[in-house]
Structure formats: structure tokens, C-alpha cells
């Protein structure tokens, strides 16, 4: 019996090959897309879950007014450990400014390369964070001075398959070059963390060790990321409630000297990656909102794919009413019919599942490359299981409907073909098509909004020259020293207009900030201002629009006490823009107070991405010894200029790898998340539309088949082909228009919500809706027209005879 069902199921499948294929492919696409998204979401939510007793680990962060900051002053960690018995372990990580890339060298093998995510860490690092050792003893590794722990990846890059224990590597940063002894190697596969360190250097060392030891201020230099682990069974709430008094005890006096109100707060370790997006994060984090969006997309894709599958399956089964009737007359009872239809749809859904696995396996490498993950198909068995359950449910649901609906009819009725045009089934089917298209239309609308906004932010005038601006980071002491030589040699090429050096450039997160107050104002009426430290020609190189005054110039000693500010800063100080030059602003540092003279005002420019509004900004003269970024304004042949600079670099700084970027690219990196998200939304929008079109196509062919006789009779009675085509098209287009009406407000809401991420936004205009409506109608038209025209032009005599 079972074999018989299977045989019939298979034959049915093969007989309507195109139809079955479309149906299976539709579901498989939906399942595959959903699987990818689920894998992605699960991967994002599994950061920092590998640490032992992770619920007890927190990061301590600070807050001034509404500004949150991920790092703390140096002595905080020890203070917490001493004052609170419930604090089991503390550890600090120092991501020193301008050391985001370290130059590593294994002199023995003459291997030399830059590496990021290298942190200075306290020796307790591995007591708090769980890592598996490949070589050496992790818990003791960082206890002695000038030691380093490498990730397995970096160790392999430096030493190959050799055991690197107790070998020496040199680490170069802008302050100098120092030797470190490798004391351990940890395994870095399968351990996802918001830190994901490549190497850890002991906090006691020859370069910045001295500086770290001297840090005893509880207010300044908030550069240390402090992590703590609470004793098992201790109350976090209780601990948290004691923090304000503790902080006041140690930091109160110092902070009130600066008139700053600062508080501490705890961030659970597992929440950092997805939920924390505050100042001075150690590395860019994920984003919970986008995970919600992706989950929603996954859910809807799966829903429309399943709905589609059911719709097509049931549409097809109605053609089989006659078969049901005959079988009943031949003695089939309801049960056996139910089994038969269930079996068929289960077989189809099983095939779809297999196909979806093939699809996922095929696209996973590309997807991995795109999202920069190493996902694999069965990484999360739970996800796989869920997909299987959902597939089975889809199969059952789409089998149940025809099974119970068709087999409930009396055989005479079915054999007379009287169940055609069943009203409730038709309404249900049409409702499902409306639903599918509503989802697709929403996705199209949101995609158009995203696309327009991305286009807008990339082409907006930012107030400086963004393209053809080369940046070379100075990452070692020598390169800083050779700056002047580099500049002079660089400018010898006619393609390079100007060159300068600065502590930062637009699009880069600024670490330097201070509060200033204007003439005649008090310390309490200060203006919080970020500032860049630059060499002369900086304004000219970046092509800021200087409204008043002058740029810094060579040989002007007074420039050290001068500042150039932006319009917003001038406004905040209460200075008129044309009268600001020559006025002074004052800052206090501990007991001292110093004043700077304003020598210029620049037009507001976007020093940060368009997520942020423009804030007060100052530019001061650089003290030559500081590490910085070399910036060259190129006008002309880019390749030629680049070749020239590389040549110059290699003669002036031999053995230091030539590394460069462009301001435009770096600036746009701020939109990396949005770009990634928008690409994902685009891709899944296409998949959704594809599935919806499959649904529409299936329905169109189903209805064309159903109306074959009607169309035949109308034709014989003299209806024109165009009239018949129009009559059928109208039915479907009405559905699509209803879908558009339902989807538009939803899409508007989601689009607006997404745009809230930006301080500079496009407005969602009616033209967007018009474009979407036209596009959707066009897609729908293309999908169904072939079927409709085919049915309208079919020879009426033939269709009447076969009926």
C-alpha cells in the first residue's frame, strides 16, 4: 500500500515536472535563505559564551551625563578587588591609542607583518577569560615582564609549525621597538569574543609599562578596559548598589576639581558584543537591532515559502478531485486518502529540504566571505532540527487540506465535477497571494529607502575633500622622525598637491577632547570640544573651507598657543563667526589654566559619519614627537602618485611595510554595518519576490487551467483575445494592488525607523511608493502574462473537447 502511494506520488511529481519543480524550488529557496539567516543569527548571539561561569563576569564602564564610555582609569580594578570581597578576579586590558596595529617580527625567520587586536593585559586575563592552551601555561604566562601570549593563528604565521615557547619576537609601536618572550599560545578556533585578541602583551614591559605604573589618577586617562568576576552566589544588584559610594570615596575629589559627574556601571560580558555600542569599544560590536531585522526577514521568508508551497500543493490537488471520486467509488476510505495526500506533500517537502541543504552548502562559502564568519551547515544542530520540523509541518499542513477537503465530498458530487470554484478555498488562496505580495512589497519599499539613503550619505558634501586623499599611518618611532623628509620628497611629484600630518582625520573616532570656556565665562559654562592635533597645511590638504583667519604656518612659534575652530564651536562659545579670530578660549587642567587664541574659523564639516550631528571641533598645532597620520592630497594620476609615494617611503623607511588607505574609504567604513545589512536585505528581498512570483505563477496557471472551459465558451461566443486577457489579468492585478495598499504603511514605518540611525536622512516621499507600485505591478504582470495569454489564445474547440 505504502509503496503504491509512493509510486503515485512520484508519478504525479514527474507528470507535472515544471509545476513540481517550481513548487519544490520555491520551498527550498525559502528554507535555504532561512537556514542561512538562522545560522548567522545564532552565530552572532553566541559571542563570549565559551567562558566558564560567564554569568558572573562583567565589564565596568563609565558614564558622564549621557555619554557612556567603555574604559576606566587605571587604579579602578585594584580598588574594586581590595574593597569588595565578592570580587573574585579583576583584569585590565589596555588598547593604547594609536597602537591599533602592531608590527611583529620573528627575526630568526625574518617574518614581519602588522597585526591588529593586540592588547596589553594584566596577568589575571586567563583567570577571567577561558581559553584553551595550545602551548604553555596560560595562567602564568603574563605574570613576568615582557612576555607575550599569541593566538594559534598568529603563532603559525610567525613560527610555522614550530613550537614557539620561549622564543623571542619583536613588537614595534610608535614609541619604540621591544622584544617579548612567547610564554603561551591559545587556541582561537571556536572561541568568539568581543575581544578576539590576536596577541596579549604583559602590562609590565619596557615600552609603556612605566607609564602604566605611574597611572594613579581616578579621573584621567580612561583607557583601561576593566573586567571583573563576582563570586558565585553573590548578588550583582547588591554589588552594583555599593559602587557609587565606592567611586565617590576614591574619585570624588579629583572629579569635582574638573567639575565632572561620573558614574560606574556594569555590563554583563555576554551582552557586550550585541548590546553595547558606547565610546571606546575595544572592537566594533554586533548589533541587536539588525539581528531582530534578520530574524524577522527569516521568519517571513519561511512563512511565504511555506504558504506558497501549500498554495501550490492545494491548487494542484483540486485538479485531482476526479481521482478522489474514482478512488472512493473503488472503495477507498477517508483514511487511505488522507495518507495518500499527506504522503505526497511530505515527499515534496522532503525533496525541498534536501535541495535546500544542497543550496546552503553551495552558497555558504560566499555567504561566509560576505559576513566574515566561518559558518558551517551543521554548526548548530538545534537550528537544523528546527528547519526539519518546520519542513515536516509544512508538508503535513499542505497535505492535510486536500486530504480532508477533497475526501469529504460525496463521490457522485466529485465525479460530476461540481466542487470547482469553491468559494472559501478561492478566498483563502487569494488571501495567501496578497500576504506574499504584501511581504515582498514591504521589502522592496524598505530596500528602496535604504538604497536612496546609502546613495545620499555617500554623495553628500561633507565639507572637506574626501576622494584621492591618501593616508599613511606612522606606527613606529622612526617613521615619525622621518616625517619632514617624507613630506618633502612626496611633494616632488606634481600629482601631489599638499601633504601634512595629523593626529586624526575625518571619519576617525577622536580620542582627544577637552572642555573650554569663552572669554568672560566661568568654568561651569564650558563647551565640550573634540580636537585634532595637526601640522601646518592641514586645513589646505583636507580642503576645509576656512571662513575667517588663517591656517597654521611654518615657523610661527605662537601657533602652539593657537586654535582653529569650526562654526558650531564658535556658536557655542557665543562668538560671532566674523569676530571670533583673536578671541581666546580657556581650559583648566588640574590646578593650571591655559588659554588658546582663535586664529581661524572653518565652515562646519562632518568630522564623524552622518550618524552623528556636527559637534564643536577644534584644531591645534601638533607637538612634533607625537605619532600621527600622514595625509597627502592627490590631484591627478592616482597610480603615478601612489607609485611615487611608495618609492619614497621605501627609501626613507626601509624595512617598514608600506601601508596606506584613503580617507574616503575609511570614512565609509563607518557605514560598513549599514552596507552589509542593506546587501542582506536586498538579497533576501529578491528571494522573497522570487518566491512570491512562483506563487503567483502557480496560481495563474492553476486558474488558467480551471477557466479553460469558460474561456473556450467565451471565445466561441465571440469574445476577443484581448478582452479575455484583460479579464484574467484584472483578477490578479487587483490582488497585487491590495497587497501594495496593505504593505505601504508598514514599509513606511520600518523605513522611518531605520533612518533614525542617521542624523542626516532622506525623506520618504510619495514617489518612492509610486516607483515601488509600478515595479511590483510590472513584476506581477510579467509573471502571469505568459499563462494568461496562453490560455486566452488556446484553440477553444480543443479546450472544450478535452473538458
Amino acid at each position, binding site marked *: 500500500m505504502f509503496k503504491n502511494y509512493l*509510486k503515485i506520488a512520484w508519478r*504525479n511529481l514527474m507528470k507535472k515536472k515544471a509545476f513540481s519543480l517550481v513548487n519544490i524550488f520555491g520551498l527550498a529557496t525559502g528554507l535555504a535563505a532561512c537556514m542561512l539567516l538562522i545560522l548567522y543569527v545564532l552565530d552572532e548571539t553566541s559571542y563570549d559564551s565559551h567562558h566558564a561561569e560567564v554569568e558572573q563576569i562583567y565589564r565596568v564602564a563609565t558614564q558622564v551625563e549621557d555619554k557612556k564610555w567603555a574604559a576606566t582609569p587605571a587604579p579602578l580594578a585594584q580598588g574594586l578587588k581590595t574593597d569588595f570581597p565578592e570580587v573574585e578576579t579583576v583584569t585590565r586590558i589596555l588598547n593604547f591609542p594609536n597602537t591599533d596595529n602592531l608590527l611583529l617580527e620573528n627575526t630568526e625567520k625574518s617574518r614581519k607583518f602588522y597585526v591588529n587586536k593586540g592588547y596589553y593585559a594584566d596577568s589575571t586575563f586567563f583567570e577571567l577569560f577561558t581559553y584553551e592552551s595550545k602551548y604553555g601555561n596560560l595562567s602564568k604566562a603574563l605574570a613576568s615582564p615582557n612576555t607575550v601570549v599569541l593566538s594559534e593563528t598568529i603563532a603559525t604565521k610567525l613560527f610555522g609549525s614550530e613550537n614557539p615557547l620561549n622564543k623571542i619576537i619583536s613588537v614595534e609601536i610608535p614609541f619604540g621597538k621591544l622584544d617579548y618572550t612567547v610564554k603561551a599560545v591559545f587556541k582561537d578556533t571556536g572561541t568568539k569574543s568581543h575581544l578576539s585578541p590576536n596577541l596579549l602583551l604583559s602590562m609590565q614591559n619596557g615600552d609603556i609599562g612605566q607609564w602604566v605604573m605611574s597611572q594613579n589618577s581616578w579621573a584621567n586617562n580612561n583607557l583601561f578596559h576593566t573586567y571583573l568576576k563576582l563570586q558565585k552566589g553573590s548578588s550583582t544588584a547588591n554589588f552594583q548598589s555599593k559602587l557609587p559610594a565606592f567611586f565617590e570615596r576614591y574619585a570624588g575629589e579629583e572629579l569635582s576639581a574638573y567639575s565632572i559627574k561620573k558614574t560606574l556601571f556594569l555590563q554583563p560580558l555576554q551582552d557586550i558584543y550585541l548590546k553595547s555600542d558606547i565610546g571606546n569599544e575595544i572592537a566594533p560590536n554586533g548589533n541587536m537591532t539588525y539581528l531582530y531585522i534578520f530574524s524577522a526577514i527569516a521568519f517571513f521568508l519561511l512563512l511565504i515559502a511555506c504558504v506558497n508551497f501549500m498554495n501550490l500543493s492545494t491548487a494542484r490537488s483540486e485538479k485531482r478531485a476526479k481521482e478522489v471520486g*474514482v478512488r472512493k*467509488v*473503488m*472503495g477507498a476510505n477517508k483514511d487511505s486518502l488522507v495518507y495518500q495526500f499527506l504522503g505526497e506533500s511530505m515527499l515534496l517537502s522532503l525533496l525541498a529540504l534536501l535541495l535546500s541543504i544542497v543550496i546552503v552548502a553551495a552558497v555558504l562559502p560566499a555567504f561566509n566571505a560576505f559576513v566574515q564568519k566561518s559558518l558551517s551547515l551543521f554548526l548548530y544542530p538545534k537550528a537544523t532540527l528546527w528547519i526539519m520540523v518546520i519542513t515536516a509541518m509544512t508538508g503535513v499542513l499542505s497535505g492535510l487540506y486536500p486530504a480532508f477537503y477533497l475526501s469529504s465530498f*460525496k463521490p457522485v458530487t466529485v*465525479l460530476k465535477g461540481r466542487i470547482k470554484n469553491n468559494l472559501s478555498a478561492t478566498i483563502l488562496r487569494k488571501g495567501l497571494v496578497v500576504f506574499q505580495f504584501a511581504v515582498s512589497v514591504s521589502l522592496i519599499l524598505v530596500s528602496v529607502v535604504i538604497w536612496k539613503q546609502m546613495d545620499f550619505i555617500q554623495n553628500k558634501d561633507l565639507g572637506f575633500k574626501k576622494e584621492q586623499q591618501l593616508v599613511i599611518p606612522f606606527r613606529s618611532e622612526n617613521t615619525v622622525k622621518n616625517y619632514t623628509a617624507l613630506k618633502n620628497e612626496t611633494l616632488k611629484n606634481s600629482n601631489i598637491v599638499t601633504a601634512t600630518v595629523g593626529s586624526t582625520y575625518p571619519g576617525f573616532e577622536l580620542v582627544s577632547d577637552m572642555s573650554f570656556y569663552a572669554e568672560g565665562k566661568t568654568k561651569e559654562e564650558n563647551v565640550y570640544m573634540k580636537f585634532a592635533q595637526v601640522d601646518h597645511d592641514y586645513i589646505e590638504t583636507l580642503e576645509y573651507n576656512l571662513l575667517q583667519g588663517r591656517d597654521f604656518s611654518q615657523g610661527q612659534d605662537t601657533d602652539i598657543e593657537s586654535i582653529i575652530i569650526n562654526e558650531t564651536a564658535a556658536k557655542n562659545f557665543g562668538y560671532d563667526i566674523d569676530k571670533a579670530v583673536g578671541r581666546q578660549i580657556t581650559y583648566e587642567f588640574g590646578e593650571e589654566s591655559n588659554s588658546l587664541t582663535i586664529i581661524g574659523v572653518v565652515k562646519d564639516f562632518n568630522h564623524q559619519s552622518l550618524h552623528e550631528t556636527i559637534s564643536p571641533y577644534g584644531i591645534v598645532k601638533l607637538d612634533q614627537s607625537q605619532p600621527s597620520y600622514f595625509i597627502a592630497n592627490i590631484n591627478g594620476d592616482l597610480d603615478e602618485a601612489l607609485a611615487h609615494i611608495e618609492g619614497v617611503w621605501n627609501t626613507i623607511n626601509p624595512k617598514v611595510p608600506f601601508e596606506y588607505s584613503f580617507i574616503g574609504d575609511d570614512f565609509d567604513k563607518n557605514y560598513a554595518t549599514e552596507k552589509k545589512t542593506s546587501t542582506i536585505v536586498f538579497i533576501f528581498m529578491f528571494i522573497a519576490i522570487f518566491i512570491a512570483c512562483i506563487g503567483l505563477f502557480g496560481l495563474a496557471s492553476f486558474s488558467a487551467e480551471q477557466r479553460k472551459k469558460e474561456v473556450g465558451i467565451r471565445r466561441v461566443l465571440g469574445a476577443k483575445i484581448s478582452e479575455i486577457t484583460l479579464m484574467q489579468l484584472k483578477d490578479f492585478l487587483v490582488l497585487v494592488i491590495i497587497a501594495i495598499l496593505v504593505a505601504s504603511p508598514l514599509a513606511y514605518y520600518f523605513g522611518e525607523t531605520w533612518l533614525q540611525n542617521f542624523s542626516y536622512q532622506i525623506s520618504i516621499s510619495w514617489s518612492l511608493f509610486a516607483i515601488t507600485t509600478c515595479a511590483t505591478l510590472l513584476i506581477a504582470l510579467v509573471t502571469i502574462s505568459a499563462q494568461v495569454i496562453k490560455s486566452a489564445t488556446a484553440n477553444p474547440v480543443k479546450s472544450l473537447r478535452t473538458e
Partner: protein
Amino acid sequence: MLLQLNNIFKWVNSGGQRIFLLKDINLDVEEGEFISVMGPSGSGKSTLLNVIGMLDTFDEGEYNFLHECVHTLKEKHRANLYKEYIGFVFQSYHLLDDLTVQENLEMPLLYKKFKGSERKAMVADMLDRFNIVGKKDLFPVQLSGGQQQLVGVARALIANPKLILADEPTGNLNSQQSEEIMQLFKKLNEEDGVTIIQVTHSEKNAAYGSRIINLLDGRKV
């Protein structure tokens, strides 16, 4: 006695009016009879046949089939009864297009829980008897109308029913094909003792039967 209809009425309500499809039908059928039902179009022939075949219900009267009171039986019992004793032949054959001749013949046996080996033997026997062994792997569309109806009759007979109900079995066939089917019916009736009730519009076909029942507006005349 194979079956007995006593004062059968069947009606539908249309616009507050009762329209009779069958009116006071009395009919006794003995085993081994070959009955032809005749009458103008719309006179209720198909309706009567469906009532006898238990595919349709009636509103009043009594129906006994092999000493079972059909009118009091539950749906499920009724289905079991016709499954076991009645074979149907349709004007438009109603073969399943997706199954081969052989599989079409096998289908009713599947629902009657015959074992695989038994089914094979019975199908082979039928193919043999109807001389269609060569066609066993063809699909219905590959057969002529007469051949399809031959398969239809074979399918109706395969589970050894006592009664064959045929609604215009030759309606779609030409005269030569009709002749063949009628000869077959006659042979089945005479040699195997199968009871046959057929609906027909042709006097010639009706003459094969031993008795003719005439219907007019749902009434026996």
C-alpha cells in the same frame, strides 16, 4: 433476492418548492438478472442508479440489499457494503490517468486489503480474460475509447462483485465498440451469473437485458 426498493422518494428543495428526482420507486431485483433502465434525458436514470449503488442518498422509502436495510445503515457500513458487492462502470470510464492499465485494475484491490500475491494473480487473470495483456503497461490516454471502457469493466469486475451498475457504458463509444461491450455484459451475466443494471438510451442495447425499466420524471412507467 438481491435487492429491493420500496416506495423510494428523492427530492431537492428549490425556491420553497419540492422537486422530485425519484417518485415512489418500487423495484425487486433477483440475482442473475440483467436489467436495462431507459427514459428521456433528465428522467432520473442516473439518480436511480446512484441510489442503488449507495453513492447517493434518498429521502423516503426502504432499500434492502442482501437482507441489509440500507436506509438504516451508517455511512461507513454502507460504504463497506457497496465496496464488497457492487462494481461501477461509467460513461466516461473514469480511469485514473496517472496509472497504467495494470495499476488501474489493481487499485480497487488495494482498498479491499488483498495481499500482494493475490492482487497480482487477480490482475493477471483479468488481463487475460479481457485479452488486454499486451496493453497492461499503457496509460489510459494511449488507449481507444472502447479499450478504455474494457478496462473500466474489468476494473468493476475484478473484486468479484455480485452486481454491476453501468451508467451509459457505451455512451461515448461507436456502434462496433458498443456491441463488444454488450456482448461482454451478456457473457458475464449468463456464464458467471453477475447481476447487471445498465442505463442506456439505445433500444438495441436495452434488448440485451432480460427486463427493461422505463422512467419518466422520476417515476417508473
